[in-house]
């Protein structure tokens, strides 16, 4: 596709360049403190061996602990809008600001890949939304997704948390698994002590729901209910950036596998009869992030988004 130039014509209105020449100060370009993570398999040149075998805990279970970034490349917003094709990608001037995404080779046996913007972008016909869900999504898109909890420093829902570009850390113990998200300082508890899910709605819905996990062979199966659905506030029940909703009735089942050192596969099944005419499953891949880590992120430190767009 032909891409028009982005250069302004030089003969147009004069550009007033304020010629203040102040040299960049001598301060060194420092980054987050560098460290070399111990226990990571590396080749002779020090590169991480992503295909090395799965680490295991003393009791023989796969150890999912460590820092992870999403691996799947999201379609560009312009692609989703049908405005450009992938060939136009080289014209972009945007920059990666989070650890880079390197997709794994396609897996034909996997469920459709989820995308951050549209969870069902790779599902034939999209997500099987009910009229209720379709109307909510329409309303959300009509206000440019301004109520996305991610955009408002709030917990953003399980699937947005899995795909947000900022990294996350899994801490695994035999009785509890914790996921710590850099994004909006999210925190998720997965109880591994054999307890059952509480009844739906009891004692109350939660931002991240109530999650219990168990091992089925090398697969960690996590069931979640008691999520705050879209009935609660405009910020609740978001599956993706475009506002595909879930309701108070939603139940999520996530299947985590770590087939190699460097790969985490998460198959997410959403069963929510109020929002979807049938359950569906999507795949999210994450890649091990060695020698980097989540950094403190206090989102509300200086959040002025809603004041600037004059809705608060």
């Amino acid at each position, binding site marked *: 596709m032909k891409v028009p*130039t982005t*250069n*302004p014509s030089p003969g147009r*209105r004069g*550009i*007033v*360049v*304020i*010629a*203040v*020449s*102040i*040299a*960049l*100060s001598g*301060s060194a*370009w420092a*980054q*987050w403190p560098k460290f070399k993570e111990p226990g990571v398999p590396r080749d002779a040149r020090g590169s991480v061996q992503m295909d090395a075998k799965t680490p295991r805990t003393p009791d023989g279970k796969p150890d999912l602990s460590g820092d992870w970034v999403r691996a799947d*490349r*999201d379609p*560009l*917003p*312009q692609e989703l*809008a049908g405005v*450009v094709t992938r060939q136009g990608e080289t*014209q*972009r*001037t*945007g*920059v*990666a*600001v*989070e650890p*880079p*995404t390197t997709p794994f080779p396609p897996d034909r046996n996997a469920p459709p890949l989820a995308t*951050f*913007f549209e969870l069902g972008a790779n599902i034939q016909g999209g997500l099987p939304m009910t009229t209720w869900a379709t109307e909510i999504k329409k309303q959300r898109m009509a206000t*440019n*997704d*301004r109520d*996305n909890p991610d*955009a*408002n*420093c709030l917990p953003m829902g399980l699937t947005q948390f899995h795909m*947000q*570009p*900022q990294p996350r850390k899994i801490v695994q113990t035999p009785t509890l698994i914790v996921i710590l998200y850099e994004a909006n300082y999210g925190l998720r508890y997965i109880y591994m002590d054999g307890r059952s899910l509480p009844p739906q709605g009891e004692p109350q819905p939660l931002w991240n729901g109530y999650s219990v996990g168990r091992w089925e062979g090398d697969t960690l199966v996590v069931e979640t209910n008691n999520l705050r659905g879209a009935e609660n506030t405009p910020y609740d029940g978001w599956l993706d*950036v475009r506002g595909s909703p879930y309701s108070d009735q939603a139940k999520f089942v996530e299947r985590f596998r770590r087939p190699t050192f460097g790969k985490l596969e998460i198959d997410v099944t959403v069963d929510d009869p109020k929002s979807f005419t049938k359950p569906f499953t999507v795949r999210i891949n994450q890649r091990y992030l060695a020698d*980097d880590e989540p*950094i403190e*992120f*206090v*989102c509300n*430190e*200086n*959040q002025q*988004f809603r004041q*600037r*767009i004059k809705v608060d």
Partner: protein
Amino acid sequence: MRNLIVIVIGFSLLAAAAPAVAHHSFAAEFDANKPVTLTGTVTKVEWMNPHVWFYADVKDETGKVSNWGFELGSPNGLMRSGWTRNSMKTGDSVTVEGSRAKDGSNHVNARSVTLASTGQKLFAASSQNQQQ
């Protein structure tokens, strides 16, 4: 926009739909169809979450100076791209490319920042196209 040195870059890929990633909705606040390039002198840097903002005095064709606000990515994202809180300072002359606020206010979501003193291009870690 009269008299301001706002250069309409014309249609580009960036003029296409551009929803948000991260800590605000890009599309609710900025208009990708209003690309601007501005040069000015930095008056303040707010190195804070969720997004860094800096302000610069920009002179228009008549010599009138206005203060503009520019949004960058998160401090963490910028740090991972090699920025520090000292990369840009009050008094620096910079040229910014970005998208102007929908409401026509002097707010811009910056895609790139170039230091006039060195020609060095500091990435903006814009929320507009950060995925990759």
